[in-house]
């Protein structure tokens, strides 16, 4: 297990947090989520939050980090003692309406990438994506696996309001906004599906390392669903 998590860099993230960046290995992502799981079950002293990402993990403490060396040593020790865990990824099919009526940026994206809207929809709905992390806000999923033709930088100025259920792209990733929020990704679709329900024991539809495929639906189907 230790072979999958080799610390490449330790980056200070303010006075109370550290971001550990890991070298690229074949199962780095699964190992990061496993480390996160381990730290949540057996937290280091004063640890108050753990935020896993694609190639790094951020450890937040409830006070200023005083002895960095000792801390890094305990994290390294923790990593070396991690045990293997079996992941059971689930494939979720999520219905998405790509109509410009709800996919507010799809036309701009199609122009920017010189790809027709139809082609864009085809390419976006044919890929199988992996949930690399949850983050941003509750229910937001970062999905890896955008078609190489569909890679576009983030917006220069983020929007103040992105509708709940928006499916958006930036870089190599697709994101799903479970909640209405500000956002800097390009919205190319919207799902009518409820992605977040606090009354459920597992409030989120997906978990890290699950897979997602998008199924195009018409505006009529979308409206009927809502």
């Amino acid at each position, binding site marked *: 297990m230790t072979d999958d998590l080799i610390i490449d860099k330790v980056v200070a993230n*303010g006075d109370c947090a550290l971001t550990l960046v890991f070298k690229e290995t074949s199962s780095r992502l699964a190992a990061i989520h496993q480390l996160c799981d381990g730290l949540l079950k057996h937290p280091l002293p004063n640890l108050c939050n753990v935020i896993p990402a694609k190639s790094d993990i951020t450890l937040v403490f409830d006070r200023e980090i005083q002895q960095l060396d000792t801390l890094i040593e305990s994290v390294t020790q923790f990593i070396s003692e991690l045990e293997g865990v079996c992941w059971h990824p689930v494939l979720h099919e999520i219905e998405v309406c790509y109509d410009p009526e709800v996919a507010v940026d799809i036309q701009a994206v199609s122009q920017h990438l010189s790809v027709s809207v139809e082609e864009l929809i085809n390419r976006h709905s044919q890929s199988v994506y992996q949930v690399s992390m949850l983050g941003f806000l509750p229910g937001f999923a970062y999905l890896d696996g955008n078609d190489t033709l569909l890679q576009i930088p983030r917006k220069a100025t983020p929007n103040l309001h992105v509708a709940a259920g928006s499916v958006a792209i930036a870089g190599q990733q697709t994101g799903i906004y479970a909640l209405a929020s500000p956002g800097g990704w390009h919205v190319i679709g919207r799902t009518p599906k409820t992605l977040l329900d606090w009354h459920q024991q597992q409030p989120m539809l997906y978990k890290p390392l699950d897979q997602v495929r998008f199924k195009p639906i018409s505006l009529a189907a979308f409206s009927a669903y809502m």
Partner: protein
Amino acid sequence: MQITIKKAGAFTTLQDHGRFMHGHLGMPVSGFMDAEAAHLANKMVGNQPGQGLIEITWTGMSFDIDVDCSVAVAGAEFECWVNNKQVQTNQVIHLKQGDCFKMGQLQQGVRGYLAVAGGFAVTAVAGSQSTLTVADLGGYQGRALQAGDQLPLKQPHRVPDFNKPAWKKIQTPSILVVRAQPGPEISLFDPHTIKQAFGQAYHLTNDCNRQGFRLNSEPLKYPENFNMQSSGLLPGSLQVTPDGQTILAMIDAQTTGGYPRILVINQDQLHKLAQARPEQSIYFFVEV
């Protein structure tokens, strides 16, 4: 045993110490914007420092109470009345059953904190009573308070007098200096831009809420060919957007972000920003 809101004010929410160990699910920490002021209000009425209380933003609230109970106000200075008789906020206010408590004109600061002795009987979500309005979660029905809401009190009681030290009164200096650390992406910026970031004044814009403050300054030079992956974001991170302007993450901030962070303010300085006003010049100061 409850208070009934008569006027809620522009943005009044229930908050406590915040929600921890849920960041991996994308859960912001939330909680008091000005923890120092909130702790003081709680202390004045004998509560635990992190106990749930009411955070009031820009405009005051009023309520009726149906039980004898002491309350205290800290943080932003509002004129306060009990049954139309003005009361001092530098001490505990003892309310009687049937009293009406009213906050009027805001005099200093932005966010006021009203603690009631014994706290509120509101169910915690993920270990916290804090309201996260963007997720309709926690607090009172997941939203800002409205006229007519009835907030149940947990253990209302009368407490001994407690005077607020005069030096704890909120001031609004024309310059606000906030201690900070170099951010995780500082190496992506050129030396001139880093010097600029730590040397120039920033001002609040109209887009400021618990999630983040959009600041206005001379634009910073955005790193070229930059495309980073999203990673863990702390409240107090100054994120530079491609237009050269900045967004300072606040307490309801998203847990991850993808804009480069040129600096992160020290966590014990966050409370200062909670009381910042648009006319103040904000400087970020790094000890090297």
